[in-house]
Structures are given as structure tokens and as C-alpha cells.
């Protein structure tokens, strides 16, 4: 079952008997998407259309979209019209400081649950949901364990390596991923690395490709945390055990470190400060995808608030394609020199 946004409750998809598969598009130049949607949409949206039109996602049973931003809502519409699947679901999610939010999100999760049951003819029992929660909780715990190796100086794992693993999780069975990570953990604990490059957090819009992180690291930096929904932040969910499983799930998803769409920039700043201390970083690179309103609108206030905290921040914007990154090389290298 395809999904795109990190606010998708993977536990429900898994409990319904589907393997969740994250649609993240590509980082090459856009080919056909402009004929289906306006060119002023981000690479994340356009590249998924490219691949969907090409038939790359034809193996999926369906897609769960989230009404996470205006662009995602329109992607849902275009997909529904031009890439017809038997199952397409648009999950709504509230934003802001919501005292009523988790109640509404629980209703939305309930709707998704019923829709998945109808489509799969499987009953999603509490036992199945609990099993899925346990599985993904283990996945998240393993990631954090692995990620803690990057708290060390020098980090025992590169940003490129861990992002490759994260993207692999999006496209594989979490059970086998968990086993693989356990083995990697053993191996990585024995290895040492040797570089004294400055340590940074990469924050901002979704990243499609581990090579993006690799490129930044090749400019003389260690990326030790990806504050993006395709990186470390993805794993930042804690589900409280309770009899009200959907209630617990909705609270956990809503209370995670917010993405820019959730309109809580103060929480984003606080979280960056916490991560910065925890991972002993020297600076932050904030990357916005071109046309990504949610992140771009946060840039001026983030700049003001992060700099007021004495943090070194480089703000970059790109179309998300690897080809355009070379234009940013000099700026990233200069930033690396500055924070060294």
C-alpha cells in the first residue's frame, strides 16, 4: 500500500495486511509531470507523478494520501484522475495548537481503518493493531539506537549511510529491516571512523535521495541528524499503551516533532535546539524545496529565532534534483569552513 506523508499511520496499513511502501519520487529532472500538474509544485510532488505515469507504482494495491499541504491535496486529485487505483484514500489531519485535534484525527484513523477493512476484506482487530504498533515501535527504537552512534564524535555512521537505510525501510518489510539493523548495529559498534569535519543537522523539506546528504557530507561536513520527514524525524513517534488504540495512535502522530505544515514553528525551534545539544552539532543547514510553501514560509522566522539562540544556520533552496546541487557547493563549503 503506497503512502507519502509521515503522518500516515503505518500501523493501520500493516494491520490490514498490506506492506507499507513509501512513494518518494526521484531526484532527476522532471519529465512528464508538468503536463498533469502546474510546474510550480515541488519536486516531491512532481517526481511522484512522473514515476506514477511511467507505471513504476503499478504494483501497488492503492495509495493513502494525507491532506498535509495544498500540494499533497492536489497530488491526490491528479493521481485519482490519471492513475486510477481501486483504493485511494485522502486522510485529513488538523494543524495548529489543537485541543480538539486528536479527537478529529482519531475519527479520521477510524475512517481509514474501515476503508482498509472494506478493501482488503480483512478485519483489523485490536490484536493486529497492537502487533503492528509493537513492530514499528521496535523499528523506531532500533533506528534511535543506530542514530545514537552519530552522537559520538566522530560519528560512527555517515548521514548518507543512515539515510540509505531509512529509504530502504520505506520500501521493504519492516520485520526484515529490523533484523538487518540489528546486524548493522553489532558491526558498527566495532568500527571507528576518523574525520573531524563539523557536525550539522539537516532540517527542512523532504529529501528523496541519500546522495543529497552524501553531497553535503562531501562538502566537508558530518550530517548527524536529519530533521526531515524522510530522515531521523520520521522515527520520532512514541505510542503510549492504552486500550484506546486509535486514540493512542492519533495522539502519538499529532504530538510528534511537528513538520512545518503543522504551524508550530516554536516547537520546531525548540526541537532543533534540543537535537543540536544532544548531537553536539556545530550548525544547521535548512533546506527548502523550491515551491514548498510550508517550509519556505518558515524561513524568515526560523532564521531570526535560531540565530537569536546563537546557532549557525545556512538556508538553502533547491529543486531537490541532484543536478542542481552543484550550484550550492560553494555556499555549503564556505559554511563548513565558517563553523569549523
Amino acid at each position: 500500500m503506497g503512502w507519502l506523508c509521515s503522518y500516515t499511520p503505518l500501523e493501520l496499513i500493516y494491520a490490514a495486511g498490506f506492506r507499507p511502501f513509501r512513494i518518494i519520487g526521484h531526484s532527476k529532472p522532471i519529465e512528464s509531470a508538468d503536463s498533469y500538474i502546474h510546474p510550480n509544485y515541488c519536486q516531491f510532488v512532481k517526481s511522484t507523478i512522473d514515476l506514477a505515469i511511467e507505471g513504476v507504482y503499478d504494483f501497488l494495491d492503492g495509495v493513502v494520501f494525507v491532506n498535509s499541504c495544498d500540494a499533497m491535496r492536489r497530488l491526490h486529485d491528479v493521481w485519482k484522475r490519471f492513475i486510477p487505483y481501486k483504493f485511494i484514500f485522502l486522510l485529513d489531519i488538523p494543524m495548529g495548537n489543537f485541543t480538539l485535534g486528536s479527537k478529529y484525527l482519531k475519527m479520521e484513523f477510524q475512517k481509514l481503518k474501515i476503508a482498509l477493512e472494506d478493501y482488503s476484506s480483512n478485519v483489523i482487530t485490536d490484536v493486529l493493531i497492537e502487533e503492528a504498533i509493537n513492530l514499528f515501535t521496535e523499528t523506531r527504537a532500533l533506528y534511535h539506537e543506530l542514530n545514537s552512534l552519530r552522537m559520538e564524535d566522530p560519528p560512527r555512521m555517515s548521514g548518507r549511510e543512515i539515510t540509505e537505510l531509512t529509504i530502504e525501510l520505506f520500501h521493504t518489510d519492516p520485520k526484515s529491516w529490523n533484523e538487518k539493523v540489528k546486524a548493522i548495529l553489532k558491526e558498527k559498534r566495532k568500527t571507528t571512523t576518523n574525520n573531524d569535519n563539523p557536525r550539522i543537522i539537516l532540517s527542512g523539506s523532504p529529501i528523496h535521495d541519500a546522495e543529497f546528504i552524501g553531497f553535503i557530507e562531501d562538502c566537508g561536513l558530518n550530517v548527524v541528524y536529519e530533521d526531515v520527514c524522510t530522515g531521523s524525524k520520521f522515527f520520532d513517534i512514541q505510542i503510549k499503551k492504552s486500550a484506546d488504540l486509535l486514540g493512542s495512535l492519533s495522539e502519538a502522530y499529532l504530538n510528534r516533532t511537528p513538520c512545518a505544515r503543522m504551524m508550530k514553528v516554536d516547537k520546531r525551534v525548540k526541537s532543533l535546539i534540543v537535537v543540536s545539544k544532544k548531537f553536539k552539532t556545530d550548525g544547521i543547514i535548512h533546506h527548502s524545496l523550491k515551491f514548498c510553501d510550508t517550509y519556505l514560509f518558515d524561513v524568515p522566522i526560523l532564521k531570526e529565532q535560531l540565530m537569536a539562540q546563537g546557532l549557525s544556520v545556512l538556508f538553502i533552496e533547491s529543486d531537490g534534483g541532484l543536478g542542481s546541487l552543484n550550484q550550492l557547493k560553494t555556499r555549503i563549503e564556505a559554511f563548513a569552513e565558517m563553523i569549523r
Partner: protein
Amino acid sequence: MVKTDMLKQYFAQLEAALKKKLETKVTARRRFIYEISRIGSRIFDENWSIGWTTVFVPYEILNSMNVSGMFIEFFGAMLSGTGLSQKYIEIAEGKGFSTDSCSYHRSIIGAAMDGLIPEPDILIGASIPCNGGVKALKRIGEIFHKDVFILNIPIEITNDSIDYLVEQYEQMIEYIETETGRKLDKNRLKQTIKYNNQAREYLIEANDLCKKVPSPANSNDLKNFIIFILLQGTKEGVEVAKLYRDEFQNRIDNGINGMLDEKFRLLWIQNRIQFKTDLVEMIEKEYGANIVIDELNYIWWEPMDESDPLRSLAKRMISHPIVGPAERRIKTLVKLSKDYKIHGAINPSHWGCRQSTGARVLFKDALQKVGVPILDLDVDCVDERNYTPGQIKTRLEAFMEMISNV
């Protein structure tokens, strides 16, 4: 002079000039703009609190609480119409706001940074029509060290989703009461619903009269009529709506058409171009084309129940065609095309409008099925810096000729 005084003076002068004109001749359009200018002036009236909002918030509630609401997109349009937007857009861009974001929002952010707009007592943003609007309002709030009350408009209409929005409206009322000290007068709120129902009837009649071929209205009679939102639930709103109905009926009774020789009937999708251009004049004069309906002028909601105002307002909001997936909006466009016997549709595809431009292929696809060609202008409706009149005119001419040859 402080900058907000400039704004106060602008509205006062506009109000005075229109009042004078109304003394010589009353037209619906003139009265409409006069009432809007009064609302502009009202933000400087100490008896009213000031609320900056996004476009789709329940103005009936604000009006019942003596909160003078002003939606940021209206203000962005006004800056553009008066030729002032460029300065403010550049101020916002200078602070790091992206040139690809919506210029309605960039211009008001710049205006707020420059001290042009008065400090709000409250800020309310709705998740519909766009995230960009809420973001812009957040940034404006930060300038004044105030947070934004966010309304999450559910995407599907069910009893549960209506309850959810009603609860949010109740919280919103508490927020307004806390921030302004003004209590909600429930009788006044009921009265706003009554006024809304009356205005609604007149507006439906006025719109229906425009279905007549040729239309009694011209392309500009109901231009930017979405700002009627500011008058929702007011006596003045009823009077304006009635004036439009009467004026169109009167024209029909007297054999007067909106334009001299209406050959083609056009549908305008979303907002008009806000800065001054001669495009509409050109299509009217050179091609005999009349914009007989604007998408956003469609009255989509059912009569409201005075005894249950919040629920009625919630139902109206959730059932708006722009809420949720594009399907409802597409159905509305198809309906309008049929009802108004449309020959062609113009979609400005406002640059930076992420909630709308992405549906343009779907609009084209649906309208073509009912024989209505559509022109995507790819224009920024507020920021005229990149406006290339020659290019736009050529495309418009080609489109009109294509329609003429059908």
C-alpha cells in the same frame, strides 16, 4: 504621520468620494464598494476590535461581536489595485519570503512589516483554502507578538465533522471574548443568520438573472464579489444584494443588456487580476465577450437555521466547493458552465497559488468534456513585476479567436 494613518485616510477618502457619488446616483456596485470602504474605515473605530483573518472565516460571528474583520487576501488585492503592492512585496522578499509564494500574502506581510496595517486584537486563520494563508497570518501575528487561532475545516461533510467545526467555533468565540473582552450577543448572531438568509436569496436571484442571454450584467458588475464576505450577516449586505437583484431585474425589464453586443459568455475561475490592465475591456470591446459568472460568486450553501447558527455556519463552510479534493470544485465549474451557457473559461492560474494551480489540468479535462475550452493565463494576479501584457494579450486573442471559430 504614522503609516496606519495613511490607511485610515485612504478609506476615509474612498468612503467620502463614494458617498458623494451615491448622492447623485445609486448603483449596486457603487453601494457595494462604499460599504466595503466603510468596513475599511471601521478598523479605526474604537468601538470595534480588529481581526485579521484568512478569507473563509465566519464573519457573522465576528460581526456579532463587534470585531471588524479584514481578510488578508482582500488587503493584498487592494494593495495591488492601488498600485502599492510592489513596494510591500519587495519588503517581504527582502526579509527572505520566497518569490514563488503567493503575492497576496507576500504583499500583506510586507505591509505589516512596514507598519501600514493596524495591530490586530485577534487573528483567525482557516485551513481552507490554503496553507499559505495560515502561514502568512502566522508571520503577521509574530510581527505583533500574537498567535493565530486556527480553524481546521474538515474535508468531508458528516455529522461528526460538523460537530467538530461547531466545537472549534465555540472555542473561537471564547478566544475572541478573552482577547477583546467582547461577549457574543446570541440574539445578534441569530439576526446575522437572518440577514445572511435574506442576502442569500437576493444574490441567488441576481446570479440567476445573469443566466439570461444576453446577461443584464457586464464583466465588472460583480468583479471580486468574494469580498462580500465582509458584509455577510449585516443589514448593509442585504441592501447591497437587493440592489444588485433590483438593478439586474430593472435592466431586463427595460431591455438594457450588461454590454452592447454580447456574443460570447465567459466563466472566470477563482480571482481576477487585481492590478490595472485593459484585458477585460479588450475582450469586451474587441470580441463582444462578457464574463457572466465568476466561480467564487456561486452561492453554494443552503438557507441557514436561525435557531442553530453555529451548526449552520459550520455546514456552510464544510460544503464549500473549494474544501477537500478538487471534485466538488470541478462539479461546480461544470454546473456553472452549463447554467450560464458558457463559451469559454479563463483560469488565471495565479502564480504561487498552490491550492488551485495544481487542479488546472483537471479543470481543463472536465470542462472540455462539456465543450467549454479553457485558457490558463499563468499570471501573477497581484505582483505586476513579471506581467507581460503583450504576451497575455496574444494568448487571450488566440483563445477568443478559437472560440469565435467554433
